[in-house]
């Protein structure tokens, strides 16, 4: 049998059910791997005792014959998810010491199914970033390296999740995606990540960044595992008013690999200036793979693509400035030490200056500005109108019979930690150029590893699906995965 830590969720599930392995063994192997992984800084808070207790309970459940797919499966949980009595601080100083007295709906559902939590995973502060470098814990490190041995970003914001899955420090991980935070890190680390349709997973208990864009999703070794984990994470929740009351199908059962007759759109606007030839080549190869599998390839146009990033950088900071107003040093988390005579305003201002990192402060202030009197119409309302147009672009191509859209996942492979230090913030934002449209339109999108670049680093392709048709999207991704045959793993150096 494959080394325990390298198992997929599906193979571990099958081995657990057959009694070939126990969850206690599996969890023990992963706890040991996590312990030896500090150089990757993927785990911000390790929870081996919780994991062991959950594993024992899972083994009992499996023996009793009552075992959902995830029963006994060790997972990592992004620090953005509130987990009861366990540190959950969105990688921010301002939530230092916060222990939620409640559990997020997504983790409640995972634990209901018997999943095991190995710990809380590193991320960009409040999920604002594309490189994990805004984390109060310091950056997570990509297990992949080029020959020069330079430390690379695992991407962001779900960088710890991506690093952990790629380095065999969990069998799967939760992520969240507001502008590409699942799909970009998945592409940078050679794993699979799906952001489902907005409303598919409850946002209850997920620390809010931009509520109209935030969605949770799984990050896994392959498409089948993504299907298994997404099913467990999805479903209607009365505690989230935007959670959809739509039945959750058995996504795994929909993985036939048969995509004959499916129409795949190739959007011309995604050929951006300065895109490396390797990315263009990969995209062309992906197109050929889908054609060879029997899909019909169609050139399409999504004319407002160019305006997605600027619209996002109005809407997301605006929502963030409102959501993050709650961090005031009164009810939870950090409060600054006050000087003699300081009043409540000084308390707010000092607490927020000390507690928030530079990028979070910047976004809060940009959001405050675009919502302020006199600019609300010019920026915020205009961005929301552009968002309507971006969604309309997608609606139109879907109405014309397109089943899924193929694009690159990122404009490059993983870059060096610190490489963007002197770049202006907008340069970093360009990482999300292919993914952010999907959040603005509320659509499901999946990143699938599809090849290596000349430095030996993974590259991903993105498939975008129709709303609520994650099953069909996963199946197309499954066909792409089979054709791409990506099996490379990073060489262990940590």
């Amino acid at each position, binding site marked *: 049998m494959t080394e325990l830590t390298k198992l997929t969720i599906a193979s571990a599930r099958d081995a657990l059910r057959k009694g070939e392995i126990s969850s206690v063994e599996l969890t023990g192997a992963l706890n040991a791997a996590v312990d030896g992984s500090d150089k990757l800084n993927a785990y911000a808070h390790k929870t081996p005792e919780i994991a062991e207790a959950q594993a024992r309970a899972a083994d009992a459940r499996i023996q009793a014959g009552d075992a959902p797919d995830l029963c006994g499966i060790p997972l990592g949980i992004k620090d953005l998810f509130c987990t009861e009595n366990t540190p959950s601080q969105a990688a921010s100083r301002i939530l230092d010491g916060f*222990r939620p*007295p409640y559990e997020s709906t997504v983790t409640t559902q995972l634990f209901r199914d018997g999943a095991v939590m190995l710990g809380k995973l590193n991320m960009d502060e409040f999920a604002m970033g594309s490189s994990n470098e805004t984390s109060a814990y310091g950056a997570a490190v990509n297990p992949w390296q080029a020959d020069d041995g330079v430390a690379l970003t695992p991407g962001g914001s779900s960088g710890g999740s991506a690093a952990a899955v790629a380095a065999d420090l969990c069998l799967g991980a939760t992520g969240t995606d507001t502008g590409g935070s699942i799909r970009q890190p998945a592409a940078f680390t050679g794993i699979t990540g799906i952001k489902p*349709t*907005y*409303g598919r997973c409850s946002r209850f208990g997920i620390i809010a960044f931009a509520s109209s864009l935030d969605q949770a999703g799984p990050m896994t070794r392959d498409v089948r595992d993504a299907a298994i984990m997404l099913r467990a994470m999805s479903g209607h929740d*009365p505690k989230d008013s*935007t959670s*959809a*009351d739509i039945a959750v199908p058995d996504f795994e059962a929909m993985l036939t690999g048969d995509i004959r007759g499916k129409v795949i759109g190739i959007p011309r606007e995604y050929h951006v200036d300065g895109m490396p030839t390797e990315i263009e080549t990969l995209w062309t190869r992906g197109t050929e793979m889908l054609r060879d599998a029997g899909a019909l390839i169609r050139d399409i146009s999504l004319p*407002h693509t160019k*305006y997605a*990033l*600027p*619209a996002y*950088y*109005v809407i997301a900071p605006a929502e963030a*400035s409102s959501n993050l*107003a709650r961090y*005031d040093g*009164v*009810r*939870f*988390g*950090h409060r600054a030490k*006050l000087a003699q005579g*300081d*009043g*409540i*305003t*000084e*308390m*707010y*201002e000092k607490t*927020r*200056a000390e507690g*928030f990192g530079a990028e979070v*402060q*910047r976004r*809060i*202030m*940009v959001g*405050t*500005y675009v919502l302020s009197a006199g600019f609300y119409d010019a*920026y915020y*309302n*205009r*961005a*929301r*109108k*552009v*968002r*309507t*147009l971006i*969604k309309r672009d997608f609606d139109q191509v879907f109405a014309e019979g397109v089943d899924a859209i193929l694009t690159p996942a990122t404009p490059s492979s993983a870059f060096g930690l610190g490489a963007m230090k002197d770049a*202006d*913030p*907008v340069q970093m934002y360009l990482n999300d150029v292919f993914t952010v449209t999907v959040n*603005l339109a*509320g659509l499901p999108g999946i990143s699938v590893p599809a090849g290596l670049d000349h430095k030996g680093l993974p590259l991903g392709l993105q498939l975008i699906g129709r*709303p609520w048709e994650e099953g069909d999207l996963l199946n197309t991704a499954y066909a792409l995965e089979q054709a791409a045959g990506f099996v490379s793993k990073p060489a262990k150096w940590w």
Partner: protein
Amino acid sequence: MSIDNDTARRVAKLARIRVEEEALPALASEFNTILGFIEQLQEVDVDGVEPMTGVTPMHLKRRDDVVTDGSQQEKVLANAPDAREGFFAVPKVVE
């Protein structure tokens, strides 16, 4: 459209984030870069377009107007930096 130090100071104040005087020029310059990027939106013809309020057409669910939660004072206060006698404690607000 250019942000000067006064505007940066005002925005920081509105956001309740302390920014030292010497940090204002750098902050204003970052705002200008970001707002310059956002400025592209002015090119788009948005005449007659409704601003998006929700990405999926859905009706908000209703529920009976009954109390479903409460009586958890200890839990509510458990994470407070300063809680006293069942309340959140803050610096004096009223003179």
